[in-house]
């Protein structure tokens, strides 16, 4: 049944029904949910863990876990604590002969029988765990292949290790000081997120996806990496699409709840549309779809999301998010992030998640389609390869984010520049991908960088942070590692041909979606951030960014920020995006105090 409900900011009663919270003037800090965490190799760990704000739920002389559930394997040698959602739990129960095992017990058993690396490969889903061997005293940190769940850790001077699912929890440990990492700050300004294993706090690290990290010694091994497989250039497109379709179906089917409704964030683009269509095909309960727009003054593409919803027969909800609502919830949404993410969709995502939580506990999205199957954002890099400029590929890639890379000489204060001269240039974080022996094709190199950094450190972390804060379990089925592997075993021109992106994906779902969705040009989610800073966010931004005690003042040039607030100082109209990035940073720093 297709129903369409429009909620306007002017329809007060409707808005209150869909959004039970009230717009608050400035709730800068919210109470954050308790998260699992632990400490290893500290004297009296059960006492030490209290500084993370939790009591120990399991401990021995060397380690303490808190804030979450602890599981063991059948021999009780391996202790596991963390976030675990396994999409292949039924198969694992059969294979391991443990029909009653919980997902945590399954992972512990896999580790015990096959080792952590193989366990990571066999476990399909979202997980980030700390694993302790009671016999050897060894600590392992394990994160899923694509980074759907997060794990942060810090070593202290006594060779101990503190770890937590969320950075704000880890920040409480004595191992993490208040000192900002300037290289991470520089990366944030150029990417709008903090890529790689660094965090904005100097001593805190993030475990990379697809890795196991062992203590003592902090020895890291990679159990899953992005690599090309040999493909057959002669394989017809239809054949590739036929092989892809069951993977797509399976990845969606596995994450659908067995009971109750499921929701999909539906933008009307190809990726979220195909997830909607497959969810509707396989879900046992109702399928609710959710779209947003930002008011009558700004362009939107609701016609496409409405078209898909009608075609698939979902309960469709359209949420209007005026700029004033965005402004009022901006501090709260930023405070929920681990590292800052300067994506103008963070606050809309939070509000959308809260609206969706009224109808379902499980939400799906279309994230992953771009990194895996092409995307026009790669074309500037193709141009770069054809013109004889002196910039390296790494530098060009960093510039392609179109954030503050070229502004850094003016934006960073001179003393910050001096300090950064001793550090590795920011673009070098991408260098290994352009020289990887496993990635020969240029497009695949770009996609690998997208999956590894934008996927793990931006999109999936944002989804995780904001959905869990809303009480939702969010899934990104197109980031299923099997789909990622498949995309790197394709002839590249089935991902991007001419300017047509996602060629094989469109072919694989051609029977599911209207022609208009399959053929519409890629546009991205239209966020009127440029307009917001002329209007609804103007005073708010000035008050925060130019305040005498603004937290970014010790690092950034206020004169340039003032220019941007006056819509000057940028060659192209990107003031809004840059101001959002800076405002996010300012609010994030305030929320850490």
């Amino acid at each position, binding site marked *: 049944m297709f129903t369409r409900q429009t909620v306007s900011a002017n329809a007060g009663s409707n808005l209150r029904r869909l959004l039970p919270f009230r717009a608050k003037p400035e709730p800068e800090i919210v109470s954050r949910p308790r998260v699992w965490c632990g400490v290893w190799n500290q004297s009296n760990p059960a006492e030490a863990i209290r500084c993370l704000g939790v009591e120990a739920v399991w401990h021995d002389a060397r380690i303490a876990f808190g804030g979450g559930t602890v599981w063991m394997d059948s021999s009780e040698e391996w202790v596991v604590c963390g976030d675990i959602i396994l999409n292949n739990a039924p198969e694992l129960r059969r294979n391991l002969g443990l029909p009653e095992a919980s997902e945590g017990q399954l992972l512990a058993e896999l580790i015990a029988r096959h080792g952590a690396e193989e366990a990571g490969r066999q476990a399909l889903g979202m997980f980030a765990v700390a694993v302790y061997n009671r016999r050897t005293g060894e600590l392992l940190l394990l994160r899923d292949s694509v980074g759907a769940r997060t794990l942060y850790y810090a070593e202290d001077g006594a060779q101990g290790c503190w770890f937590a699912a969320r950075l704000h929890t880890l920040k409480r440990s004595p191992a993490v000081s208040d000192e900002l990492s300037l290289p991470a700050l520089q990366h944030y300004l150029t990417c709008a997120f903090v890529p790689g294993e660094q965090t904005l706090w100097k001593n805190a690290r993030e475990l990379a996806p697809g890795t196991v990290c062992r203590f003592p010694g902090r020895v890291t091994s990679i159990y899953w990496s992005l690599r090309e497989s040999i493909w057959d250039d002669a394989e017809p497109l239809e054949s590739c699409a036929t092989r892809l379709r069951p993977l797509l179906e399976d990845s969606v089917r596995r994450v659908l709840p067995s009971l109750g409704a499921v929701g999909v*964030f539906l*933008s009307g*683009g190809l990726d*979220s549309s195909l997830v909607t269509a497959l969810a509707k095909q396989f879900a046992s309960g109702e399928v609710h779809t959710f779209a947003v727009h930002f008011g009558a003054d*700004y362009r939107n593409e609701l016609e496409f999301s409405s078209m898909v919803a009608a075609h698939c027969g979902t309960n469709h909800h359209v949420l209007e998010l005026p700029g004033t609502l965005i402004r009022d919830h901006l501090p709260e949404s930023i405070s929920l992030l681990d590292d800052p993410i300067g*994506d*103008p*969709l963070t606050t809309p*995502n939070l509000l959308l998640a809260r609206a969706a939580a009224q109808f379902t506990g499980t939400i799906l*999205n*279309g*994230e992953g389609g*771009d990194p895996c199957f092409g995307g*026009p954002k790669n*074309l*500037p890099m*193709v*141009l*770069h*390869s*054809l*013109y*004889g*400029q002196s910039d390296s590929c790494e530098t*060009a890639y960093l*510039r*392609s984010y*179109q954030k503050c890379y070229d502004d850094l000489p003016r934006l960073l204060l001179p003393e910050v520049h001096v300090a950064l001269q001793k550090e590795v240039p920011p673009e070098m974080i991408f260098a290994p991908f352009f020289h990887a022996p496993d990635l020969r*094709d*240029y*497009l695949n190199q770009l996609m690998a960088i997208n999956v590894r950094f*934008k996927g793990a450190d*931006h*999109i999936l972390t*944002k*989804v995780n942070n904001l959905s869990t804060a809303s009480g939702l379990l*969010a899934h*990104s089925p197109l980031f299923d590692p099997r789909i990622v592997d498949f995309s790197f075993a394709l002839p*590249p*021109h089935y991902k*991007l*041909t*001419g*300017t047509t992106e996602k060629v094989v994906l469109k072919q694989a779902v051609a029977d599911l979606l209207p022609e208009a969705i399959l053929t519409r040009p890629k546009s*991205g*989610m*239209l*966020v*009127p*951030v*440029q*307009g917001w800073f*002329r209007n609804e966010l103007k005073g708010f931004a000035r008050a925060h960014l130019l305040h005498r005690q603004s937290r970014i003042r010790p690092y950034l040039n206020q004169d340039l920020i003032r220019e941007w607030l006056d*819509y000057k100082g940028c*060659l*192209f*109209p*990107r003031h*809004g*995006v840059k101001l959002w990035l800076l405002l996010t940073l300012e609010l994030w720093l305030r929320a850490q105090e």
Partner: protein
Amino acid sequence: MKCIHCSTDNKYTERQASRQKCKACGHPFAFEPKTDSFQMNDPLFARIIKGVSADDTLFFTPRQLWYELNRRLLARKTFGCGAGVLALMVGGGLLAQSRHLPPLLMGLPVVMVGAMAAAATTAKAKPGKTRVPKMPWQTFEMTYLAKWTTTHGAPAKMLQPPAVPAPGQAVPPWSRHAAPDVTAYSFDRALVTERAEIAALLVANNFHFENNCAILSLDGYPFGNADTIKAMLARNPTLKVFALHDATMEGSQMGRTLRGVNWFPDTAIPLIDLGLRPRHVFASNLVALSGTPRTFPTGTTSTALGAEEIAWLEQGYTAELHTLRPHKMMRGVYQGFARAGQVDNAEVDADGFIIIDNHPSVWVYDGGADVYAADSFG
């Protein structure tokens, strides 16, 4: 004159005594304003470089620097303008005392005359009143730029024109990759300039990169890869092509060239004219060049040009793209891209060009798009 290295002020007598070197740091001066026919001085030339390069952030051509210098020379106050301003000040003072009728009666006419004098000296260009450079190019290049380069080094952001291969000279393809594997792809739009120098300027400033736009020139830029890029462009059935040309007779014919067999003969591919035209010179008072009067060859008059514009060109006037500062040029093109996407049922002239600017201010930046297209929605 202040030294541009240490900011120490050096009087004329001190400069004479030190043989044109700074008394504090010893750096030589390039110019001596007391004896220079244009009163050129080092700090002024440094400011001109900063102005054209947007504070050393953008690359520029030597001719853009020349035009920037001439804009400064032309902006120097004339007698008429100065008299007008003085009259305004006096009249304003009288009006301020205008509680009594006699000062009011005296002040008003003075203000009116002053305003008229100031306006007359800053009248917009029209045929016959076009602004042309005060300093000839050869003087600038051989004397002023040469002196500056010898004394202070070439400006860091100044681009030399790329070397255009001789006709028939083969240039090997260039690629960052040992096995070029990017030719399966294409681009949303192409920008074609008349000459390599402008194309290279845009590429140096990353315009192609920022706007997903292939950049080519009629004389073969990028040398060695132009044919590859044209073949890649042919893969996009919804390609848009933009032309960027000087305000010249030849520039106005660029549409015909781009419809030639070596470019985009398929009329389904829209050609959009973003080039300079005389109307832009009139509206923005751009510095132009004067030359020998000539007439349009028979049958080549562009239907897009008005009678006033044709008359201006036939008087021998032209305007180069170099007359625009780099940031103004790029913003204008960017603006043109945005407008081309919004135009329905656009007028197409006989040369196949789509005309998108229905008013003369296409080179005026209006702030651009209000929306940002985010990558993710989840």
